[in-house]
């Protein structure tokens, strides 16, 4: 019996190109909008928008919000919200600032510049973020306080506990190793970037191929070979193209000269080298891959989506939805800690207002990326693309000379417009929510 079912299914006719590629039309729409946006800004700025330098800058400015947005997807998918992410980031940042400039040096007695400072500092930041996240999750899951209230309270509490932690001081200078996680200060250089890019491309091709093999093994319907090949080519091209652009942005000569001097050498005349992949971007990509695997390939991810789609059904299926809530907020907190590392290192200091209004950017990125506030629907790549679109919009407007209040008006309008388009789209393809 099952064989008949499979055979019939496998021979179902394919309707057109889109069906053959099995591409997510919503994702294509977002990419299309993003490309249009970039092209428009590039036109208005006479080609200054799409330079390697500007692309590099937008990329490293996106990382912090994008990391948190991937966690916000899980929070919103389970029908919760987290208004505290900016404040938790500030709290983790404050603790890391104090840890590396005072606690490890004055209390634990490490010498300045010790190689232990950066890892211990980061551990402290991640621990603080995770602990706060777990606590929020416990209040929501086990005490039944709505997430909106818990995290609204959290916003006020942690922002100001952070203030007391540093006595309202800006903390700088920071440990030089730590600064490498911010972006421009820590890049892999062209050679390693090419190697990693090639490995990533190979990995993507392998993933496509092994997915196809698993489907064939069970006799399920697969895409035509040409479609699979085209997809692999597209992905490979995108990865290598991105590496090429980042490699094309040279390190400023003055900075190179300083680097050579630091090693007691003289910079050869005409020497130049590209930045390549920033470590912070690698962290984001790693987060994206891990979170996507969690969402799609693990029980935890399955339960997150089930609980978002129908909390009662999840509970009746034996899923411990309270513990699930704790885990989801724990992940969110951990990612706030990770974001704090990147944000603080990029700013090369801990300013008091670090992460202010990030909660709104993060929620907007997730929502623009297709995460439905009704729960049960959302993707990690969508949220990251959402963060990238918002950052590009803001940077582009900055370059064109739009003043800040008007920038905010535009971003707010785009958020509402994006959700409206999403609703229309879902209506047309007949999805619920």
């Amino acid at each position: 019996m099952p064989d008949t079912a499979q055979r019939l299914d496998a021979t179902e006719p394919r309707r057109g190109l889109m069906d053959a590629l099995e591409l997510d039309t919503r994702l294509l729409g977002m990419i299309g909008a993003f490309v249009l946006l970039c092209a428009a800004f590039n036109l208005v700025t006479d080609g200054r928008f799409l330079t390697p330098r500007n692309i590099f800058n937008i990329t490293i400015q996106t990382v912090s919000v994008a990391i948190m947005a991937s966690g916000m997807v899980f929070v919103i998918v389970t029908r919760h919200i987290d208004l505290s992410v900016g404040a938790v980031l500030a709290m983790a940042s404050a603790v890391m600032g104090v840890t590396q400039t005072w606690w490890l040096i004055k209390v634990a007695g490490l010498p300045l510049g010790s190689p232990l400072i950066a890892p211990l500092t980061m551990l402290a930041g991640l621990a603080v973020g995770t602990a706060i996240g777990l606590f929020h999750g416990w209040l929501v899951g086990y005490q039944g306080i709505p997430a909106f209230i818990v995290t609204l309270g959290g916003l006020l509490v942690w922002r100001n506990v952070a203030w007391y932690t540093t006595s309202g001081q800006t903390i700088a200078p920071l440990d030089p190793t730590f600064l490498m996680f911010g972006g421009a200060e820590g890049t892999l250089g062209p050679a390693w970037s090419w190697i990693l890019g090639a490995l990533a491309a190979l990995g993507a091709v392998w993933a496509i191929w092994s997915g196809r093999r698993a489907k064939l093994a069970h006799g399920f319907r697969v895409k035509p070979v040409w479609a699979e090949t085209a997809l692999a080519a597209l992905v490979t091209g995108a990865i290598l193209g991105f590496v090429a652009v980042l490699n094309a942005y040279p390190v400023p000569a003055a900075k190179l000269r300083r680097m050579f001097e630091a090693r007691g050498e003289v910079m050869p005349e005409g020497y130049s080298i590209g930045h390549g992949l920033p470590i912070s971007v690698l962290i984001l990509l790693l987060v994206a891959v891990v979170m996507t695997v969690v969402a799609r390939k693990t029980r935890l991810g399955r339960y997150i989506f089930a609980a978002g789609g129908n909390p009662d059904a999840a509970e009746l299926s034996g899923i411990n939805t309270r513990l699930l809530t704790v885990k989801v907020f724990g992940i969110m907190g951990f990612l706030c800690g990770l974001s704090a590392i990147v944000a603080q290192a990029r700013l090369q200091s801990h300013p008091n207002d670090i992460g202010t209004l990030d909660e709104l950017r993060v929620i907007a990125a997730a929502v623009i990326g297709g995460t439905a506030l009704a729960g049960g629907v959302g993707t990690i790549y969508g949220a990251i693309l959402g963060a990238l679109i918002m950052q590009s919009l803001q940077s582009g407007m900055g370059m064109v000379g739009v003043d800040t209040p008007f920038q905010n008006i535009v971003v707010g309008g785009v958020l509402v417009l994006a959700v409206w388009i999403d609703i229309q789209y879902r209506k047309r393809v007949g999805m619920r929510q």
Partner: protein
Amino acid sequence: MTPLVELIDISIAFGGIKAVDHVSVDLYPGEVVGLLGHNGAGKSTLIKCLSGAYRKDSGEIRINGRKVEIENPRDARALNIETIYQTLALADNLDAAANLFLGRELTTGFGFLDEARMEAETRRIMGRLNPNFRKFNAPVSALSGGQRQSVAIARAVYFNAKILIMDEPTAALGPQETQMVAELIGELKRQGLGIFLIDHDIHAVKELCDRAAVMKNGQLVGIVRVDEVSEDDLLGMIILGKKPDTLAA
């Protein structure tokens, strides 16, 4: 023979409403016990005490003569109790395979979800229960009422239940699908399962069940062997709330 399930003096109240009021029912292996009663009689609430969805206020549950505490749906599943809820309890955003295995996913050696095997198993069991079912890759929100119901039924029978609870399993089904469920109940009964069947169709209860328990306003009106009563007798019990005179002691 010890009963498979004994629900003894079960009570549960919501606020002031006594949804289930000192009800006792038992169930033997290979037996189908029908639960009858008007809407709001307390049938779903009673079986939810057994499936772990609700916690009883008082009373006792015995499985194979042994007293058990069922605090949540996990406890019930561990005792091989499977339930088809009236609301179906499906996650609408997930596909049939994800719903069938929800809470009991198959995984690969590395602990990742084995989607391909889960889909293959789903195709296998759906091929038996509902051979016309095709939408294996669509979220269940895209399915018809009957298709959704067959997913919920597949989930309950896939995992080798010993005790099966079916709360209005044919509510959304057409005549042909209803007939298939009737055949399925017969087959499971022959395999020695005990089945609680809640159904509004008195005719069907008389056909499929060995005994019928009638409830009204949270109380048990009586339990009768279906071959000792007529359909009119059962209807009378449901409406009047008392046993027919011929059987009243």
